[in-house]
């Protein structure tokens, strides 16, 4: 077995992820062979996750939309260079994160919020119940305020810290995957994560209960 394949196997630890990576690689092979329409499958599969990463880093839905589209275009243009050393998902995330980081660095002084609506569904209903006992309009106002404070606190973090905490806590990636995406060690990822959580605890203390 090739050394890069061994490395890839080590990074993609769970069997589900491995199956997903294999399926993606098969589609990528089709695109590399000239089947351009096959790339649409990858877009449909990953557009929400890519948009989510970019949105959580920028806190602006218009910018997130543009940057997510740019990420897919870059991935499409560079698809022939993808050799399968890592999963397509990790590769696409890396492109998205790098595109977003360069955008944030260019527009460091120009940042404003344009937030999406907070959807209440089964996954977050419990948390929302824990957070507030208010009803009706008060509850909506409270949630809106909470959303703004949360995004403000995230935007106060430095770009690397924000990226780490977004990828780990919101997108649910592992330390090794984040390390590979960001091009740093797992220790650095853990350290940044720890610092970012401490900072957010200080900023959002009003909404926390211990």
């Amino acid at each position, binding site marked *: 077995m090739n050394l890069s394949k061994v490395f890839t196997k080590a990074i993609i630890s769970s069997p589900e992820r491995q199956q997903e990576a294999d399926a993606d690689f098969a589609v990528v092979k089709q695109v590399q062979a000239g089947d*351009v329409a096959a790339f649409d499958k990858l*877009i449909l599969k990953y*557009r*929400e996750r890519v*948009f*989510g990463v970019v*949105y*959580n880093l920028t806190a602006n*839905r218009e910018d997130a*939309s543009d940057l*997510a*589209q*740019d990420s*897919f*275009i870059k991935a*499409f*243009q560079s698809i022939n*260079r993808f050799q399968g050393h890592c999963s397509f998902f990790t590769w696409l995330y890396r492109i998205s994160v790098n595109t977003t980081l360069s955008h944030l660095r260019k527009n460091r002084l120009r940042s404003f919020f344009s*937030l*999406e*609506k*907070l*959807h*209440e*569904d089964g*996954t*977050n209903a419990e*948390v*929302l119940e*824990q*957070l507030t*006992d208010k009803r009706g309009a008060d509850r909506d106002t409270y949630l809106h305020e*909470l*959303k703004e404070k*949360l995004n403000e606190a995230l935007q106060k973090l430095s770009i690397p810290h924000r990226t780490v*905490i977004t990828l780990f*806590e*919101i997108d649910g990636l592992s330390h090794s995957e984040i390390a590979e995406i960001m091009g740093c060690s797992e220790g650095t990822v853990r350290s940044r994560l720890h610092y970012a*959580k401490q900072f*957010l*605890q200080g900023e*959002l203390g009003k*909404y*926390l*209960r*211990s």
Partner: protein
Amino acid sequence: MPELDQRPKVTVEDLLRLKRAERPVPEFWSNFERELRQKQLTALLEKRPWWQEIPQFLARRAYLPVGATAILAFTLVSVKYYAPAQLAQVQVENLPAGSPVTVDRGVTAPVASVSSPLVNRSESVQSATEAAVVVSSVPVSSEASSVVVELMPLLLAPRAAETPSARLLAANLTRLEQSEGDFGQNVLNARLSAPAREQAVASAAEELASVPTNSTRRNRLLAQYGGRQLNPEPAPPAVVRERLARRLGATETSDRSNRLAREIDTFSTPMPQIVALRF
């Protein structure tokens, strides 16, 4: 507030998980897809600049041909420019260790200057003049002289028609050939038989040994060639005469201009300040 205290705790992780609920509405994705399609088509149609093609070109395993071509070109250039210099150096280095001859620095320099453009031209011209006659203050052995004799055509031939000094050297050699035909012929051809070469070298060595040690290069040259002038220059009296004539001419011109100025002053009304200054 007892009610608040009874509620379960909320951590940062819980708050951050709320961010997952910030999702766009379904209509957003249709717009997203349409825009993405347009961008994709634009990306397919637009011609990428040439510098973005370089990494792809290199990725197509062009390393080997490009590297081989570069090495080949470098080798050819090196051989073309530096091979003659190395040849001459080898000849000089092949001298025996105890050889009494000291070869001038200028012996190798003109050889390099003939072929290499990297060498300073003015320096090489000067060293070519100096190297025309390789003279040493110490006695010359037959072997060393043969080296010098072999090197001389190599030094003089390529630059014979290039610089005035080289033309002068060539003229001197021709004159030498006319006056001392055998020796000159031997020097130029360097194809003497062994006994004849030894004889010629011995006579040259005697002649060189007779030159005083503390004399200048010019004196040594004059002594070597029996007081004949190899470099025809204007005689000193002629030069002096010419300079005197030039100076006299200059004095006459200045006198005329002074006289003219004085005449002009007499016609014009001089200002008091100027008069005061003049006196």
